[in-house]
């Protein structure tokens, strides 16, 4: 099949874009999941969509291709472009403009009237005879009805169609909101589609700590949100991020957990088989099948609220027992901002002053090992660290010793 910059299947390009954006050190030979030709085609497509952000580097292993962008400097997530590159047939695009044009006069028209109009008013304008059969037109009308572009009404044995914009929405009044939410919102790609409808919009907003990769998981997120809003179960097709192992899980999805410090997104759901709350990374989900409504949804939500009270991140640890942790922090004169920092960054627990130069953070969490990265941000100020989970203490102090060695000790770790 001839190469096209448009694609039919999003899944393959999702993997390549992730590789180019996150890793970016692999050469062509290292992409072994698909053939070299497949790599060349995907690379060419991504280059066609995102040429401004693609960089190349030649080294002994070959040519590396990677995406590099300072997300603080740009108003729009370039990865959304992948969602705007769906392939279509010649009939798809022709019927799209014909049908919306025919129904633009606000009348309700029957299938038969639409078919006649297409043949008599549009296709007749060409010297070469063209025809589009009735069943193709019927399918397209049905598709547009399910998307919400058309409204259909049955009168007797006939079905009548009209456009749904008889209720006007002033999208221009949303321009600033769309500029903001198209980037900030987890499903911002929808905002990006809406911005495409505007002739112009302001270039006011920029975003710090802006993680853009989640854009590639938008379709998965969208289906999960629909399932959550309808209180339905889902079957997830997953592929382990590290192991590559493929497996399925049936859950009732309840919440979407998002890290603002890594961009990772997770669905928390009630797992039917284990009768436990479990997290799944959205970038590990390859496909979703939405199932039946679950009448125990409110019960699961109540359990989720209790569960959330002791979650530091997205791990419930082993056995769901609680780890008790106490961190004593030394505060020097003029460093009261450290106390404020502890207060705004702690997700659970409490912070209290012990004396003028010391304060203590205390918490009970399911898995204190998840706290290690945060604890390390206080290196240079930690006077004492106690935890019922000994691994936390051992790892923390082992790491400090390794860092002492790395930055001037006798044994250089690298």
């Amino acid at each position, binding site marked *: 099949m001839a190469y096209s910059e448009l694609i039919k299947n999003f899944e393959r390009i999702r993997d390549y874009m992730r590789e180019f954006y996150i890793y970016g050190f692999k050469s062509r030979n290292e992409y072994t999941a698909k053939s070299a030709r497949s790599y060349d085609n995907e690379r060419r497509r991504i280059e066609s969509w995102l040429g401004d952000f693609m960089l190349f580097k030649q080294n002994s292993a070959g040519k590396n291709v990677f995406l590099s962008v300072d997300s603080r400097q740009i108003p729009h997530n370039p990865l959304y472009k992948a969602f705007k590159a769906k392939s279509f047939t*010649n009939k798809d695009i022709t019927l799209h403009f014909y049908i919306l044009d025919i129904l633009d006069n606000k009348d309700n028209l029957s299938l038969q009237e639409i078919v006649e109009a297409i043949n008599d008013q*549009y296709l007749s304008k*060409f010297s070469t005879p063209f025809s589009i059969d009735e069943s193709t037109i019927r399918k397209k009308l049905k598709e547009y009805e399910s998307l919400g572009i058309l409204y259909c009404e049955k009168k007797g044995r006939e079905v009548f169609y009209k456009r749904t914009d008889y209720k*006007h929405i002033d999208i221009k009044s949303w321009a600033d909101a769309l500029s903001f939410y198209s980037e900030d919102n987890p499903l911002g790609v*929808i905002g990006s589609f809406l911005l495409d409808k505007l002739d112009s919009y302001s270039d*006011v907003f920029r975003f710090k700590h*802006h993680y853009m990769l989640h854009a590639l998981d938008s379709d998965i997120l969208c289906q999960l949100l629909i399932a959550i809003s309808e209180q339905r179960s889902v079957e997830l097709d997953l592929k382990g991020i590290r192991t590559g192992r493929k497996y399925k899980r049936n859950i009732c999805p309840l919440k979407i957990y998002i890290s603002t410090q890594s961009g990772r997104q997770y669905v928390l759901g009630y797992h039917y088989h284990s009768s436990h709350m479990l997290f799944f990374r959205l970038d590990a989900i390859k496909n979703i099948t939405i199932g039946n409504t679950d009448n125990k949804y409110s019960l699961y939500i109540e359990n989720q609220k209790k569960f959330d009270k002791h979650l530091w991140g997205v791990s419930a640890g082993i056995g769901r027992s609680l780890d008790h942790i106490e961190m004593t922090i030394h505060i020097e004169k003029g460093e009261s901002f450290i106390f404020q920092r502890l207060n705004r960054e702690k997700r659970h627990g409490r912070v209290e002053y012990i004396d003028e130069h010391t304060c203590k953070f205390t918490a009970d969490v399911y898995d204190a090992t998840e706290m290690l990265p945060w604890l390390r941000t206080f290196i240079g100020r930690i006077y004492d660290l106690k935890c019922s989970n000994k691994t936390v203490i051992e790892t923390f102090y082992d790491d400090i010793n390794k860092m002492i060695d790395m930055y001037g000790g006798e044994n250089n770790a690298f």
Partner: protein
Amino acid sequence: MLFSEIYGSYFNVVASILKEALNNSLTDNKITQLVHEKAFAESVISIPTSLKNNDWLLFDDDFKPVIKHSPTMPLTTLQKRWLKSLLLDPRIMLFEPDFTGLEDVTPLYNTDTFVYFDQYTDGDPYTDENYIKCFKEILKAIKEKRKLKIYFNSRTGAEHSITCIPYRLEYSAKDDKFRLLATDNRHINVVNLVRIHSFELLDEYDTNSFKLPQKHLKELVMLLHNERNALERVLLHFSHFEKETLKIDENTYEIKLLYDKDDETELLIRVLSFGPVLKVKSPIEFVDLIKERINKQKSLQVIQKQKNH
């Protein structure tokens, strides 16, 4: 669902081309310009070809559009449901869009569907009337290219005022804060919006003589030792920077990223959070800052040990 041709760049470009044609202002150059603006690098060949050789039956033999009305498309149910969800977000007060037409629409999600578990808890007061007023006026000043005089309190509480050219509103999801980026033609001023208590909207400035100020960026070079899934964690965490990664050997990678000097302390603690899997090579001042923190930590541990003995 989201991945549909109706949201695609090709449909948008073709709609724009048809609009131009119906206005009798379509030229070959205009087609090229629209394709460049709205589609992809290689579309400049595929779209005009498909239009001209009747693959898509949208222009007749004389290249006149066969449709009668300027093309528009109603919003899809998904788009309406998403917009309705935005109305539940407290920050929507900053924009006040017209929500007519969405009355009977079911939101796609509720605000509590999302849990931002590591977001800081001292976010901006989005329902505060004075905050909303400041936000809207600053937004207006930026859009209308007008100068501003702002009155604000510094971190220490001291009162300040500056006359400036506001040029961006920057939001951080981690901090849940907006910051105003402004310049007085010499310095870049970054002011937390919540600290601004009043303002005066001044005259328009000369846009021809205004140049967007450039931040002074520095390069941080780190070595990553890939253990405990560090490679993925580190690269995801720092993915919003302009960066380059080089594989040194099976378990070691070199990461170069560009950062704003004003954010050095923040970056320092972010690097520290990864512990010994990251070692900073340069700049040397950054290495010194890390050493200082580690030495302080060492001293505190010695004091603690002595106390326990």
